[in-house]
């Protein structure tokens, strides 16, 4: 009986360990994350031109920022500001949502940092990204 109990305990521990191993993979496939992703995907069609013109750049904290208002025609300035604000809102929500989906809200800062590096790393040639020395253009 005691032996059986021990075996059972071992089994439980194994299952628990398996779950935790699964958690070492970051869960990003939740309805909320997918919704944010879709929203950002759609917005990217409008933002891409501003990245290319240098009007909007990528910051080191995983956000986007209006870099050069002069590169935007006066008539479009308001809409660019709105785009940037909406994009940042989505990004903030994305980082928070991934952290929550993995039951580790405290990971949000690290997730944001990871994204920040990857956004900048993967930015297209000609886009502007923030560095420790200020804005630089990706080549």
């Amino acid at each position, binding site marked *: 009986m005691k*032996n059986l109990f*021990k*075996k059972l*305990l*071992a089994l*439980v*521990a*194994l299952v*628990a*360990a398996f779950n*935790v*191993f699964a*958690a*070492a*993979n*970051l869960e*990003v496939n939740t309805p909320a*994350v997918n919704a944010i*992703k879709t929203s*950002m*995907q759609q917005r*990217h069609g409008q933002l891409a031109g501003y990245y290319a013109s240098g009007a909007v750049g990528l910051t080191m904290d995983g956000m986007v920022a209006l870099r050069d208002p002069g590169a935007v025609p006066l008539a479009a300035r308001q809409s660019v500001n709105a785009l940037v604000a909406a994009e940042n809102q989505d990004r903030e929500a*994305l980082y928070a949502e*991934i952290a929550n989906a993995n039951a*580790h809200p405290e*990971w949000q800062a*690290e*997730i944001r940092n*990871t*994204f920040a*590096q*990857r*956004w900048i*790393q*993967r*930015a*297209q*040639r000609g886009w502007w990204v923030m560095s420790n020395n200020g804005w630089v253009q990706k080549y």
Partner: protein
Amino acid sequence: MKKIWMALPLIVLSACVTINIYFPAAAAEKAADKIIEEVWQTQHADKPADKPADKPADKPADKPEVKETK
């Protein structure tokens, strides 16, 4: 044999704690890349484009799937 059954849960549980506390940086990077790829709809914006895609065999298999549409 009995000892193994006693030690196993302890080992496994201690492993749990270690894994659970730390942020899975590698997994996060992979997840970020996948999401960025989908949002920007790019494949390798970060890779130099000087090499034509004629060497599919030299990529290690552990890379996430890179679909070459178009």
